[in-house]
């Protein structure tokens, strides 16, 4: 029966006998369990989105009617300035933010690597260890940075250090997962080759596995650094240092032009950071970073400008050399040390810069390693106090705010999809109506994506007032940029063959998109939409800190009043919700594939 779904059009043409039971062959696709599930999920998502939009109550009329007022406010704001008397403080805060993100990501990577090996099925033979490692990775992913920050502000006191630790711990969730998956997906061949020489398990890890995953480690780390830098402003709002402290100050003192000025400056820095990161990736990995696997060998061979390394020319000369009489090579290449090729120099310079930045991350914000470890002795006690001993914390307000968080998540995802899906067809090179519209759409997506959620939320709270509506719109804004990029990439991966087939049957432009492009991209589009839902739920937990709705407000309040039970209870609830959505998303993804 499932075969018929794939070719519903051809089904009626089949001259075969009527289906069992004597009923005539149906001209509609049969209702299989899978198809019903898909419909139910789509309806469920729509229902959840409608409920979310109703719950966050985006008052379109109110926004329109209040527009003159908003406009007035925006006009007052639209004179972004960087106050000269604050300049040195701002620069210090920006440096702190960068180093906080850098040190945090670095710690995250260092902790993730052993965890990833322990979590990978093809490395760790003991199921118990794998399950524990995976659980740690899932936990750090589902607990937002801000929750870690609030806890570690209690451990270390106000400053950059809790920010670094929070970023580091939360980063494990993503880095650990991606690395564990990368390890599980490596080509087993080379490992077998290494094992067959009599290598032990650690030698196998170093030579057989690590050498294969280094490109992934580098690109994932750089990618995570971008995310951590962009997300760092929120930490300042809870006292964990960085540019957020300045933003919170301006918000509190109603210095809106300053607020906008610093926010825009930060957005520019995020864009610069992304460009620097992608340049670094390319410099270290060469073509490997740009096109993983496919034809990497040929490309690197060409890029290195070594004529001898071209596969075609070398395979010709293989015979002569194979007889055993090696041609006398230049002394330089007879060296027992690897030659200083451009690639090797670049890699070593990058590594040196990385180490230098890591050291600076502790020197510039003035953090002592001693403090970092000594104060950790307080951690067990705080964690113990965080564990809720009863349900007293689960008040009606907590319940309502948790629901509001979920509502914001669904509503913002829905709004973002509404814009991003059509936009992504313009931002994909193979479906864009023209070169210019493609470039504009891509660039818009990049700019929109660069604005940190929290910064947009702060600005929107100013513009349309406190409450979940501002939070929803802020999240939707950021998601549009991200979703457009993801979707456009998916669309670009669509194969051309089926499109040629559809077009040569006389289909128009939109028919081509509908019949040939969308069905091919659909599994990735749905998968990535679920990923967006995942992200927006996680982000919606922090909006409350700037007054944009959701559970964040109560979380921060509990932290301020040292109500550890409530704090712990809320963090646990967030974990449960985010993890539940992640499980659901994973299940749906498997159904589609």
């Amino acid at each position, binding site marked *: 029966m499932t075969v018929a779904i794939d070719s519903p059009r051809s089904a009626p043409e089949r001259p075969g006998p009527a289906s069992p039971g004597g009923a005539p062959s149906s001209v509609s696709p049969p209702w299989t369990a899978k198809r019903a599930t898909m419909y139910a999920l789509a309806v469920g998502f729509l229902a959840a989105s409608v409920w979310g939009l109703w719950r966050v109550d985006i008052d379109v009329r109110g926004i329109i009617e209040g527009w003159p007022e908003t406009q007035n406010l925006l006009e007052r704001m639209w004179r972004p300035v960087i106050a000269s008397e604050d300049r040195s403080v701002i620069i210090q805060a920006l440096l702190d933010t960068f180093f906080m993100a850098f040190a945090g990501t670095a710690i995250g990577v260092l902790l993730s690597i052993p965890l990833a090996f322990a979590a990978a099925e093809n490395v760790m033979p003991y199921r118990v260890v794998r399950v524990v490692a995976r659980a740690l990775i899932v936990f750090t992913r589902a607990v937002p940075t801000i929750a870690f920050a609030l806890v570690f502000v209690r451990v270390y006191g106000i400053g950059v250090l809790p920010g670094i630790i929070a970023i580091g711990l939360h980063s494990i969730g993503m880095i650990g997962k991606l690395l564990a998956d990368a390890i599980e997906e490596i080509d087993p*061949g*080379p490992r*077998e*080759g*290494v*094992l*067959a*020489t*009599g*290598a*032990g398990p*650690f*030698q196998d*890890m*170093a*030579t*057989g596995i*690590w*050498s*294969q995953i*280094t*490109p992934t480690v580098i690109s994932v780390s750089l990618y995570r650094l971008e995310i951590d830098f962009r997300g760092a402003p929120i930490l300042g709002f809870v006292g964990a240092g960085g540019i957020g402290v300045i933003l919170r100050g301006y918000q509190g003192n109603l210095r809106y032009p300053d607020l906008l000025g610093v926010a825009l400056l930060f957005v520019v820095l995020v864009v610069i950071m992304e460009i620097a990161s992608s340049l670094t990736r390319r410099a270290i990995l060469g073509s*490997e970073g740009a096109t993983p696997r496919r034809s*990497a*060998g*040929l490309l*690197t*061979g060409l890029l*290195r400008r*070594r004529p*001898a*390394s071209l*596969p*075609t020319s*070398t*395979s010709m000369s*293989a*015979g*002569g*050399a*194979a*007889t*055993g*009489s*090696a*041609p006398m*090579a*230049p002394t330089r*290449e*007879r*060296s*027992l*040390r*690897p*030659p200083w*090729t451009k690639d090797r120099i670049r890699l070593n310079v990058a590594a040196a810069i990385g180490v230098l930045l890591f050291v600076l991350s502790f020197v510039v914000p003035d953090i002592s390693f001693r403090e970092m470890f000594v104060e950790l002795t307080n951690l067990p006690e705080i964690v113990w106090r965080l564990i809720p001993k009863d349900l007293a914390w689960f008040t009606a307000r907590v319940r309502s705010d948790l629901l509001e968080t979920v509502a914001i998540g669904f509503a913002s995802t829905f709004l973002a999809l509404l814009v991003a899906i059509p936009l992504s067809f313009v931002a994909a090179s193979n479906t864009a109506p023209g070169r210019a519209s493609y470039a504009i759409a891509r660039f818009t997506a990049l700019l929109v994506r660069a604005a940190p959620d929290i910064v947009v939320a702060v600005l929107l709270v100013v513009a349309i007032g406190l409450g979940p509506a501002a939070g929803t719109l802020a999240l939707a804004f950021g998601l549009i940029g991200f979703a457009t990029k993801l979707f456009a990439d998916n669309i670009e991966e669509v194969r051309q063959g089926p499109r040629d087939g559809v077009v040569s049957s006389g289909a128009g432009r939109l028919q081509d998109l509908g019949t040939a492009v969308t069905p091919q991209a659909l599994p990735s589009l749905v998968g990535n939409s679920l990923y967006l839902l995942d992200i927006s739920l996680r982000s919606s937990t922090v909006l409350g800190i700037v007054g944009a709705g959701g559970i964040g407000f109560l979380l921060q309040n509990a932290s301020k009043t040292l109500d550890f039970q409530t704090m712990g209870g809320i963090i646990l609830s967030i974990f449960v919700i985010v993890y539940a959505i992640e499980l659901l998303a994973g299940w749906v993804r498997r159904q589609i594939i």
Partner: protein
Amino acid sequence: MTTDTPAIDLTDNPVLGATPSRNGSVTNAVVVRDLVKTFDDGRVRALDGVSFDVPEGQMLVIIGLSGSGKSTLLRHLNGLHTPTEGSVEVLGVDVPAAKGRQLRTLRRDVGFVFQQFNIVGRLSCMENVLSGALGRVRGPRLGALMYPRSLREEALRKLDRVGLGDRAWQRTDTLSGGQQQRVAIARTLMQNPRIVLADEPVASLDPEISGQVMDLLVQCCIEDNITVLCSLHQVDLALGWANRLIGLQDGRIVLDSPVDADLDHDSVMEVYRRLDPTGEKADEYQAVVA
């Protein structure tokens, strides 16, 4: 050649290409008895009661169709597979029983050349060849400089032997297929093995390069007095140097013969002629085998 492996009773098995004697002047590098291997809970029977001995220094070629069990058989000899039934003894070690350190020690003496080369493409040729010495050093190694200088010199000599001394520091995935397999051979030689198992080492190379790579492998093994068990599709490539041929079909040995004047080409090709796409002639073929 060392003779520390115990002499094995050879009376019930004709040793080919060498004269057996009870007082142990010839020892067996490999002894396989009634080897059975099933996959998928017994649904697939890859090896179905295979028995044979290989004396040291022999050049044995195993032929057979894809899926006849050649790879499965070879992978049992260095412990990449464990038998469902039967015994496998290599260099006097009971392979299925060997675990951990004992298995690694055995693998040092048993080189394996894979059809897909199984080298790490991102690493330089030097690093790949050096990984053949991992059994000799302790602890993990990242990068060529973590190996002692003497091993690096040795690795360079091995690369010279396969004609790639001038490519030592080039990334392996920038080489052609034939060259990559030569790097893999150099890695195997780096182990200073007593046995080399080669699993269709030239199946992914074109005919001309295949001949060159095969010649190189055989030449090195003869020079170092290494026992060779090699599975091959190209019978003609085998006849030039092999001194014994084993034909596998559906996991059973259907041909076991020394390569000499008595071995006629037709009887060898018979191993390949089992292909019966329709299944109609199955009985006829069975009769021929019997």
